[in-house]
């Protein structure tokens, strides 16, 4: 589901100059020319060290987001209202886990092992999309996630699917296909509450009010404070700026919320008809970074659940592993 428009990087901002001095300038020029021509880069190809590092970071965090993102929704499988909703939610959550697998595979082609990625997630070194550090308090939260968070993720993923790294693009192509079902089922459940009883409408409005800030955070800080995207855009690792993606999202989905008679908790939210851009109150970016650092309402629970699963799944992983199969393999060839 969740490309998570914002990819966290704690390694400082001076990477460009340092890393590029180490790369062979002739190979770098050929590499950049290939990308400029629209060619895809494949696992065995030469690539700048920083391109590899950034892609691992991007794809790994995307993979973690899929897996962690299944937790707030998975919580509601047992309590979904009705058999049809339950079936759809199970199918969706299974898809998200599958997306995690596809993305881990894509990241592995860059040379980082699955185990290393999982360990970095468990230790807190590697991040995931910030929205999943908030709880799904009611069924209405599930419909807001299924409709709006998925919609935001699709904006991000459709953009990334046109990127330069072949295995990531192929994984995203498959993911985007399944996302269209997620979005539709989310929208359907969202509409059902919006057009339902007064209690249903109130529950949905309440969920929307709580989720609006995390949704505005979703694409990351505004372009004017978000450093180091220029090179990443030239290399087609980042395909659209945070502000552009946020605007595209608002343009497509705010009308779909308003048409149902719902409101959004931002009095300044409106489309500027001259510029075609949406205007809104500046979200609380201090809170955003505070939650990324681990101090959100659910950070600890999310990681604790993942740890529990790894810890208690170990015995069966070991029991299934046959000794004769034990030699580790080369990288996936795809």
């Amino acid at each position, binding site marked *: 589901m969740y490309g998570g428009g914002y990819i966290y990087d704690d390694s400082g901002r001076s990477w460009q100059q340092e890393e590029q001095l180490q790369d062979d300038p002739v190979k770098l020029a050929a590499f950049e020319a290939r990308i400029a021509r629209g060619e895809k880069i*494949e696992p*065995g*190809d030469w690539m700048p060290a920083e391109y590899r590092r950034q892609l691992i970071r991007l794809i790994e965090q995307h993979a973690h987001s899929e897996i962690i993102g299944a937790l707030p929704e998975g*919580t509601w499988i*047992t309590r979904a209202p009705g058999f049809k909703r339950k079936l759809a939610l199970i199918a969706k959550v*299974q898809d998200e886990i*599958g997306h995690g*697998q*596809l993305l881990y*595979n894509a990241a*592995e082609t860059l040379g980082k*092992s*699955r*185990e*290393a990625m*999982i*360990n970095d997630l*468990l*230790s807190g070194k590697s991040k995931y999309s910030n929205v999943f550090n908030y*709880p*799904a*308090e009611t069924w209405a939260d599930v419909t807001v996630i299924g409709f709006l968070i998925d919609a935001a993720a699709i904006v991000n993923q459709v953009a990334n699917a046109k990127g330069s790294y072949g295995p990531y693009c*192929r*994984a995203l192509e*498959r993911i985007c*296909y*399944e996302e269209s079902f997620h979005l539709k089922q989310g929208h359907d459940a969202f509409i059902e509450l919006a057009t339902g009883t007064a209690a249903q409408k109130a529950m949905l409005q309440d969920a929307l009010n709580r989720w609006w800030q995390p949704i505005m955070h979703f694409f990351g800080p505004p372009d004017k404070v978000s450093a180091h995207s220029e090179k990443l855009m030239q290399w087609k690792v980042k395909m659209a700026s945070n502000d552009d993606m946020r605007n595209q999202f608002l343009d497509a989905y705010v009308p779909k919320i308003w048409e149902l008679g719902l409101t959004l908790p931002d009095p300044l939210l409106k489309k500027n008809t001259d510029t075609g851009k949406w205007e809104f109150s500046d979200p609380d970016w201090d809170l955003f970074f505070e939650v990324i650092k681990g101090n959100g*309402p659910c950070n*600890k*629970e999310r990681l*604790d*659940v993942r*740890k*529990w699963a*790894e*810890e208690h799944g*170990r015995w069966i*992983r*070991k029991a*299934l*592993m*046959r000794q004769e*199969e*034990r*030699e*580790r*393999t*080369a*990288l*996936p*060839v*795809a």
Partner: protein
Amino acid sequence: MNESLDPRVNRLRLNNSDGSFSIEEGENWNVFEVFHQEKRGAHHEHVGCVHAPDANLALIFAKEQFGRRKKCVNLWVVRSADILAFDLEDEDMFANNPDKTYRDASGFKVMDKINKFKAQSK
């Protein structure tokens, strides 16, 4: 920390764990490449890979991962390590393939010769 909204999560007593846990290299098994056949008679096409302890489980995971949507009549799995491939840097060894027109039907201008012959025999 607030108590989880999920009763199942609360039953796990997560707060009892000391917090540090890591998995070992190799614990996530081997990698298998997956090939998907859309209909009988079609080629199996590579679609991705799965991690599994052996080929039998790889097939089951492949069915979940790649056979859950769209048409599928069959799947193959093969261990990634068993695939032998050329080095991508040796791509140039295939470069003159299209130049060897004597291996293509289009490399033989039969009609030209027939027409020339017919014109001469008039």
